[in-house]
């Protein structure tokens, strides 16, 4: 069931490739703006690289949340999904996975390249990429709740940012913390453990909360 949704959403995304690319280019442009704003001093850039990449990833992931349910909502597919005997939580899980595959994975793949722009050393690049790999699925899962709650509301796009960004903060803290710990030559395993814990908790609770929110929003 989950894989059926994932396959369908991926197919839809491939038919409209520009949507995927817009999110990715938004990420790249935001990250590239910072050196222009603060100056090209390599020491400053190296210090802020993980934070900039992570914040840009949060924003990019958040901006694409609107598309998670709105297309299905507009053409009535979502209503049929709610009526179907299959578990709504599983359907939602599929939506979150495909959101991550479409927006999260390209960000993870692009992160090392952007890290090089910021003159990050090899190990920090690896840690940054791994932390994004663990963290971006959490963003999609938490974001699904916000996307479901703001479905069909006026000003939904701005509203979802107010709802979701504060909840993203723990992921941001530990994601960037891992990179900083590795740059300082310290043990960064603990940060990964906590990110992993966030991922597990959100896998368990988010589909359930999102399904409840969808039922509320669809009345």
């Amino acid at each position, binding site marked *: 069931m989950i894989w059926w949704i994932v396959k369908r959403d991926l197919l839809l995304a491939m038919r409209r490739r520009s949507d995927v690319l817009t999110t990715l280019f938004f990420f790249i442009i935001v990250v590239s703006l910072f050196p222009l704003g603060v100056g090209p001093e390599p020491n400053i850039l190296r210090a802020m690289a993980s934070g900039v990449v992570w914040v840009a990833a949060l924003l990019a992931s958040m901006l694409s949340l609107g598309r998670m349910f709105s297309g299905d909502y507009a053409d009535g597919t979502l209503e049929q999904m709610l009526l179907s005997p299959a578990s709504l939580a599983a359907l939602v899980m599929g939506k979150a996975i495909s959101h991550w595959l479409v927006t999260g994975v390209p960000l993870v793949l692009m992160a090392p390249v952007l890290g090089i722009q910021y003159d990050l050393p090899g190990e920090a690049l690896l840690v940054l990429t791994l932390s994004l790999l663990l963290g971006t699925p959490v963003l999609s899962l*938490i974001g699904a*709740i*916000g996307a479901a*709650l*703001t479905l069909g*509301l*006026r*000003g*939904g796009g701005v*509203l979802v940012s*107010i*709802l979701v*960004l*504060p*909840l993203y*903060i*723990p992921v941001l803290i530990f994601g960037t913390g891992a990179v900083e710990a590795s740059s300082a030559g310290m043990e960064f395993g603990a940060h990964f453990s906590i990110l992993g814990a966030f991922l597990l908790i959100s896998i368990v609770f988010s589909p359930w*909360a999102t399904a*409840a*929110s969808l039922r*509320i*929003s669809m*009345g």
Partner: protein
Amino acid sequence: MTINWFKYASPASFYFLAGRMIPYFSALAIIFLVVGLYIGFFEAPTDFQQGEAYRIIFIHVPAAWMSMFLYVVMAFWAGIGLAFNTRLSSMVASAIAPTGAMFAFLALWTGAWWGKPMWGTWWVWDARLTSELILFFLYIGFMSLQAAIDDPKRADKAGAVIALVGVVNVPIIYFSVQWWNTLHQGASVSLVQSPKMATAMLSGMLIMTLAAWMYSIVIILIRTRLIILGRERHTAWVSELKEGALE
């Protein structure tokens, strides 16, 4: 004797109960406020390290405690409203949010005033300050979500979901001191250890907390009454109220 607990779950009967309770809680709030401020300004000794500036804790600490406590209470009532479909619970939850946000803001503001003489800076990115700021954002998110939804039923339920999700943040605030262990001083008051401050300071702070608590109850009851009137304006008992028949 059996008590009918559900009698006051009806907005109509709660409206009058709340009206009767408001004067008592107002009196308690004023008494605690006067006593607490007296202790805070005249009884509590000057701190040997922090001088007179520490006295802002009599506002700061109660505000911070209330902002966290009210969030939990709000999430509790919102959750009850979501689970049992009791309209009144959701109304109380929406009535709590502005007061909680006000206390969160007050805690941040007074903290800045305290931080300037103590740390030499208005703001630091310390874990506890940051989590208080996040708590403030959570209140804002709850209120703006409810404000964006026109249908009160959907607004109540959507708000409940976001409040329950946000409740995850409250333990993070509490444990952040141990987790990140940065500039903010560790908790001076704890239930398991004897307090590390003078008795007058502690009692002043606790009495001010009671004052803030009573104040919150009064404001929340008033606001709940207004929400009830707004939502039930088409019912018979509200129109009777308008004609002065029930007073």
